[in-house]
């Protein structure tokens, strides 16, 4: 997971007129980190629609999306003590949901592939590193690298990325804020991700 430290951010999250950053959300997160399951239930209630929408947009099936939503919240609950507010809670949990949904999609695809493909030399799924393990590895290794990489991003890329991951604004809102088109916002964000990936790969090499 690409984790970006708040200490390196050029801007702080906007709490005004954003229900995703409402004070009660921060309180629920804090209480849930201390094991308050009722507070976690409030977080589920607040963000279940966003998580479901993301899962459904990738899987296009209610049953599969439902499985991913439940798994996402269970994983989030287990990982919550390590959540450091380096992004908004929504960004954090949507990223978990996205990763889970892509994993589910990949498993479905493998289950429907003919056996000949594996016999042709494809790596057997059982031999591959499981996605959660890889995610944990990425999480640990990427943290320091990204702290270094983020300030080096071009300003427009950095601004667009921060508005997205920290404020959870939609593209059109970011476009309005930056005074550019939605397409330009998406391009800035994608190039920011591309640059972070470049730094990530260079750091690992």
């Amino acid at each position, binding site marked *: *997971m*690409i984790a970006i430290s708040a200490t390196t951010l050029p801007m702080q999250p906007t709490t005004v007129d954003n229900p995703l950053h409402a004070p009660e959300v921060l309180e629920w997160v804090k209480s849930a980190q201390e*094991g308050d*399951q009722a507070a*976690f*239930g409030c977080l*589920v*209630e607040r963000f*279940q*629609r*966003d998580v*479901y*929408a*993301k899962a*459904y*947009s*990738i899987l296009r099936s*209610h049953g599969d999306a*439902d499985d991913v*939503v*439940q798994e996402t*919240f*269970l994983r989030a*609950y*287990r990982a919550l003590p390590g959540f450091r507010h380096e992004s908004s809670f929504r*960004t954090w949990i949507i*990223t978990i*949901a*996205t*990763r889970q949904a*892509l994993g589910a*999609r990949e498993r479905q695809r493998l289950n429907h592939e003919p056996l000949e493909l594996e016999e042709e030399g494809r*790596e057997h799924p059982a031999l*591959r590193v499981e996605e959660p393990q*890889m995610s944990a*590895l*990425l999480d640990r290794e*990427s943290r320091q690298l990204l702290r270094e*990489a983020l300030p*080096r*991003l071009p300003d427009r890329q950095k601004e667009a990325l921060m508005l*997205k*991951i920290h404020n959870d604004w*939609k*593209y059109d809102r970011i476009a309005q804020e930056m005074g550019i088109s939605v397409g330009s916002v998406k391009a800035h*964000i*994608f190039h920011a*991700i*591309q*640059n*972070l*990936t*470049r*730094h*990530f*790969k*260079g*750091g*690992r*090499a």
Partner: protein
Amino acid sequence: MNHTLPEACLKTLDAIQTDPLNLEPWAEAHLRNCPGCREARVQWLAMEDAESPLVPAGYFDTLPDRVLRKLPGQPVKRLGTRPLLLAAAAALMVAAGIGGYFAGQATAPPPTVTASAPTIDTETLESLPEAPFQDPEDPINQLEGLSPEESRSVLKRMMVPQPPTGSEP
């Protein structure tokens, strides 16, 4: 950003930007072996705005409870001492009640037959005097309730001759 990405990564990232969910087989193959590009796709997809789809009625009403039931380490509800004491007292009372019932069954007196007086119809009651064997208005009966001094006094007065009244013939 001093590092340069391999050509395969650049091509894959371009493909991800175009359509992250419908990649060509070569791009999918690259993702399987490139954690960086795979993570880039996760981040890119996570940031895309998703439309709210239609869901079955009531789905979001029940989802939080379903999630909470699956959380690890569901705490056992801890009771205070007061409810426990009340429960123990209630159990004792029930036990005592049951024991008392069976003890009462064991020591109960043998069943008895109780006779009831025959019923008398109202006509018979009206024809009988209130005290058939003792008339409380009888002077002799009244004398029996007197003390010896009172009896002597009464007898003495009875022996005094009474003056004639005008009503007698």
